[in-house]
């Protein structure tokens, strides 16, 4: 196979890894944010919950930034088009995301009750909304998005943003992502908190996990009847230019073609469902550490399922299907992909090492009494 | 033996630093200047603080905080 094609594939795979890392790590923090008002009744309890992720949320959030950066570098056309096509949704996501670092830093710096109560609502908003939008974005690209390019490569939008928000399938996907994040957030709280936070987190984590399973299966059934896209003609080694060189058709149920062709892919949805159920069981059995790792499996299964059914599409276009963005026509140049790969090979292992080391240094239960005493805590 | 290893490690670090300095100094002199300059600024500021302690060392215990 052509080196360029291999590079494109490797980067599509790395993008999946990033999306999984984003869902798992950022989702976990968002879940804690969503749950904050429910697991913590007193101010001390809420501060405890915040300080459990306190030393790590900033590092975790970089997964999100890195996700954006990697799409920009590896698939610039995808970055340019998807972010603009989803403009209003993206801006809402951005607003809720930028509220979060501020909320962490400012919430406990002032004693007033109204002040802290307001920031607690901000945590709910900035935990729920981004995960919802994250899931809803997957829902939307599965259904296809309305856009086309003119000859210079400028994109033009053909649908109103309302179709991306008021869209039952997208809402289902959004809620699914929120459920996974709440489950993971609850598990993290269980690992590092004591009662009463521990038991409340257990309560919410188990229910969110069950909801995730139900929504995941419902989504699967829905996709069967949905109109999918098929790449009829297109050379994987083509120059990355979405304006011509592809022929794409829309067919009902096409998103299951890859599964029909390669039945081994069914292992991905299976992995997702099994891990979600196992996580619920482990949460109920009070084994949060093992449950946390099941969360990884759940995200791998979920993102993997979507990736397997859409391959090689990134963002199909309903109004101009031939200009649909695929792995082949939206990537960076061979040189750019090579550079990025070399840099990643050096830094990704390094990042994994020092991130784990940070968790190791900050390990152990967080006690409410210590948090309230310490003037430097969140 | 441990001392020998330490020297070997130190030597390796020096060689790496030297190669880095030669390469960056050649390709990007301003980057090199930044690295050296920043270290210098920190050391000067730190020296200023230590100097303060020396100038002021006679009666710190009485000083109001």
């Amino acid at each position: 196979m052509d080196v360029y094609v291999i590079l494109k594939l490797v980067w599509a795979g790395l993008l999946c890894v990033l999306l999984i890392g984003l869902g798992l790590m950022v989702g976990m923090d968002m879940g804690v944010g969503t749950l904050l008002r429910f697991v913590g009744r007193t101010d001390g309890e809420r501060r405890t919950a915040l300080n459990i992720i306190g030393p790590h949320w900033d590092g975790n959030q970089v997964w999100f930034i890195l996700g954006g950066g990697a799409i920009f570098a590896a698939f610039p056309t995808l970055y340019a088009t998807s972010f603009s096509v989803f403009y209003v949704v993206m801006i809402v996501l951005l607003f809720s995301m930028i509220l979060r670092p501020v909320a962490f830093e400012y919430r406990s710096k002032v004693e007033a009750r109204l002040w802290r109560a307001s920031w607690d609502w901000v945590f709910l908003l900035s935990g729920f909304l981004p995960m919802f939008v994250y899931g809803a974005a997957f829902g939307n690209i599965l259904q296809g998005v309305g856009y086309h390019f003119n000859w210079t490569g400028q994109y033009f939008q053909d649908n109103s943003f309302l179709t991306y928000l008021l869209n039952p399938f997208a809402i289902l996907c959004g809620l699914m992502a929120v459920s996974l994040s709440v489950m993971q957030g609850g598990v993290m709280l269980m690992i590092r908190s004591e009662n009463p936070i521990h038991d409340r987190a257990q309560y919410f984590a188990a229910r969110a996990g069950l909801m995730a399973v139900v929504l995941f299966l419902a989504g699967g059934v829905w996709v069967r009847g949905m109109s999918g896209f098929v790449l009829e003609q297109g050379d994987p080694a083509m120059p990355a230019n979405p304006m011509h060189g592809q022929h794409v058709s829309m067919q009902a149920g096409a998103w299951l073609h890859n599964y029909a062709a390669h039945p081994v892919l069914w292992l991905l949805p299976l992995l997702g469902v099994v891990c979600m159920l196992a996580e619920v069981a482990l949460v109920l059995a009070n084994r949060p550490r093992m449950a946390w790792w099941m969360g990884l499996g759940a995200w791998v299964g979920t993102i993997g399922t979507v990736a397997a059914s859409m391959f090689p599409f990134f963002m199909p276009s309903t109004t101009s299907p031939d200009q649909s963005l695929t792995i082949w026509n939206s990537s960076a140049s061979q040189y750019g992909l090579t550079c990025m790969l070399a840099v990643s090979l050096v830094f990704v292992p390094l990042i994994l090492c020092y991130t784990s080391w940070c968790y190791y240094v900050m390990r152990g239960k967080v006690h409410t009494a210590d948090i309230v005493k310490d003037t430097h805590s969140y | 033996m441990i001392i020998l290893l330490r020297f070997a490690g130190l030597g390796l670090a020096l060689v790496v630093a030297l190669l880095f300095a030669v390469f960056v100094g050649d390709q990007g002199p301003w980057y090199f200047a930044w690295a050296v300059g920043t270290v210098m600024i920190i050391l000067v500021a730190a020296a200023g603080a230590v100097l303060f302690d020396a100038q002021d060392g006679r009666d710190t215990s009485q000083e109001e905080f």
Partner: protein
Amino acid sequence: MDLINPAVVDLSRFQFALTALYHFMFVPLTLGLTFMLAAMETVYVVTGRQVYKDMALFWGKLFGINFALGVATGLTMEFEFGTNWSMYSRFFGDMFGTPLAIEGLMAFFMESTFVGLMFFGWDRLSKPAHLAITYLVALGSNLSALWILVANASMNVPHGAHFDPETLRMTFDSFVGVVFNPDAQAKFVHTSVAGYVAASMFVMGISAFYLLRREHRAFAARSFRMAALFGIFSTVAVITLGDVLGRLDYEHQPTKIAAIEGLWHTSKPPYEPWIVAALPNDAKQESSFEIGVPFVLTPLITHSFDTPITGMIELEDAAAPRIASGITAISALRRYEESHLGADLEVFHAHQNDMGYGLLATRHAPNQDVTAIAPEQLQSVIEQTKPDILPNVFVTFWSFRIMVFLGVFFFVLFAMASYLSLKNQLERNRLFLKLCMWSIPLPVLATEFGWITAEGGRQPWTVFERLPTFMSASTHSMSYMLFSLAGFTMLYSIFIAVELYLMFKFARLGPEAHHQHDDGADPAHLSVVAH
């Protein structure tokens, strides 16, 4: 026909400028304060005196308040290229995305992961280990700036990429060329040390406030000393690198340097004055009044006494043939897109260096279509396009001057501060302390004007001489832009109010809970506090 709406382009530019300037209110402090924290903690680890740990903790707390907003508003920047500059991102993303992604991988991850340990790890790490973490945070935040400025420099001086007619975008071809772009080097050092200046002024000003109130004197006098010395060396570096950048602009971006200097006509060395103040009029293309210092401009910019600097009118005239050639290039490229004939490609290759100037004519072409310009219209289109090659002279000229005047002021201020601090004569000079206190916001102001000079002076291009700004924006509707602008304005106003409130609150409170301690010279006491 899909047309470009100039109002949407203007709103996109306004939104980007607003969010970038706002982001950059917090970045300089992060860049500098991290290294100052490292310097303070170094003294603490070496001497073991508690007061230096108090310094690291207190300034660290103020750093944290600032850092949160820097991170939050940085998220906007990472997204905005995609959400608002779609054409730019597609056209230049192959090259531009790489430094941004490396920034995340190499710098931002390191900074963000270790900043948690820096705040929360005091009791869990040994003293040297915590110090190492602080240095890593400082290095991380500055490496972050490095990659962002490498990306930015490639917009100003597009080294390491060429246009590829197959993909209709700039193709990345030299990593070394991008990273060691001379503009990137000088810009990074200039910006990073400008951050050092901002942080020095911040620490010095707040320390001056304590000295004025005769509170926390041991703490404040030491902080002041360190900040003053940190500041004087940084200011010298900022000025040196500013000079280097000026010369690079002279070599690579003649329109920017001519606008900065308000030079409408080519200079006459060696007499040509450096204009201190003027009122440039963009519409009339002349300055209505000028005061200058003779014999300064030529050696300042060119480091020689006999090299002329091309003026803006002459640059416009020189651009006319490039606009014509660019229109030919675009027409050939469009034919090639449809026909894929080698002949069209050859025509394009012959004119491809002027492609950007062809795109610049889009606004004046019938139906915004350069390929539809009839031969008899060509001359009038060129005449209309010519003045477009210049940035806004008034803005560029004055933002540069404000930055430079402030820089000179900092130099004097830090020099005096260092002298008075070394002589231990600060508390007698209350007026000077007040001046230090009131100067806290000035370095941030200077960096903002520096950014306006650099990026405003780059106009009308997003990628210099390759892609015009008005073509780079996403094709949103007005209502989308109004929605996002309203949201940003509201959120950012709340943020700045909260930030200032907290900054003032904690600065007033001072280094808390250390009122009972003495200087920490007593080793028994130390072992309790710094286990």
